[in-house]
């Protein structure tokens, strides 16, 4: 497997040090890395799963709105960031690993390296009250 570009290597190293849940994805939306706090929310462990292809992790990550209706993936902040290469934010519900309904806020940022190379995106999560 070829090595990742430096910006993603540093991005992973950075979010690995955070207690804020975070996802790192490539331009196609494949999940390259998620840190331990993100793993806790989704009941996953990066050491066990490794990176996940987009079709794989979209089955694990199934956000829904206040009425329980699944959210169109195209409307998710991270998906918008990948499409438009712009920052986005949003909030929705997910089920935590023990089945609780939790409300989270997401901020996603494009990773645009020098000079203007789009390499993927970073999503940071906050568990909040609705």
């Amino acid at each position: 497997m070829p090595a990742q570009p430096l910006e993603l290597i540093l991005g992973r190293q950075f979010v690995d040090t955070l207690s804020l849940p975070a996802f790192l994805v490539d331009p196609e939306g494949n999940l390259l890395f998620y840190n331990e706090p993100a793993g806790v929310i989704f009941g996953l462990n990066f050491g066990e799963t490794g990176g996940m292809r987009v079709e794989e992790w979209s089955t694990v990550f199934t956000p829904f709105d206040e009425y329980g209706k699944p959210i169109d993936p195209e409307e998710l902040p991270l998906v918008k960031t990948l499409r438009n290469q712009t920052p986005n934010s949003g909030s929705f519900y997910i089920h935590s690993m023990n089945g609780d309904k939790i409300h989270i806020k997401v901020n996603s940022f494009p990773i645009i390296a020098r000079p203007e190379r789009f390499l993927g995106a970073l999503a940071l999560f906050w568990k909040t009250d609705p």
Partner: protein
Amino acid sequence: MMKIRVWGCRGSLPAPGPENNYYGGNTSCVEVTDGETCLILDAGSGIQRLGRFIDPKIKEIHILLTHLHIDHTMGMGFFLPLYNPSVKVHFWGPSSSVTPLLLRLRRYFSPPFFPVRLADLPNHPEIHELAFNDFSIGEFQIHSEYVCHPGPTLGFRVRLGKKTFAYIPDHEVRLGSTHFPTNPEWTSGFELANKVDLLFHDGGYTVPEYEQKLGWGHSAVEDTLDFATLCQVKHLAIFHHEPNNTDAQLESIFADSMKGKDLGFEVELCREGAEYFL
């Protein structure tokens, strides 16, 4: 054949003096030639001597700057071929997010750093910006990419025929790399050095020194040995010697770092004046 000659391998500051004669005191400058195709990797103080002894048949010179830290650029204005109207010089260097390379080079070629401006040279050098690129110069095929070091900093992988040489003089390999040294996909610089015939790599510190200088952009000798092992290089020359270390101190740091290691590839401290043929 790729001919590599070291004109400077000291880090940070020139360190002339009798106690440093063997490894040399000039800062980063490496000449890579194939017939009349001439690459110069970095323009540290070593480039001044190179300019005096360069083959006069060479009429086009490509200076590839890994980055613009002063120890890699301080020799630029003292490179005599820049003042020779029959020689064309190209500068290649890292793109930054904001300022074009031309403007960053002009900062050097202006008072108070240097009295001669770029526009005053007989031929204005041609400027080429690099990031993650593959390009060729003569028969050389070159790959550049950013590595972990403060400010935009490149490493180069140079190929001629089947032979490869990687040059990563300033690189803090441990800082950016997850699970170092076992995870090539997440190791800064891996692609540049993977299975090369010869690697020049930053290795100025002892492990305790590195712990004091975390984030400064350089590597401990032991991390360099681990990186070279991970990349399965055939030959490693440790580069960017600390200006405070004498020949004897460099050798003792090297000997300590090698204790108990069976590496399976050739390794030595890089030395000014050394030549390699690939």
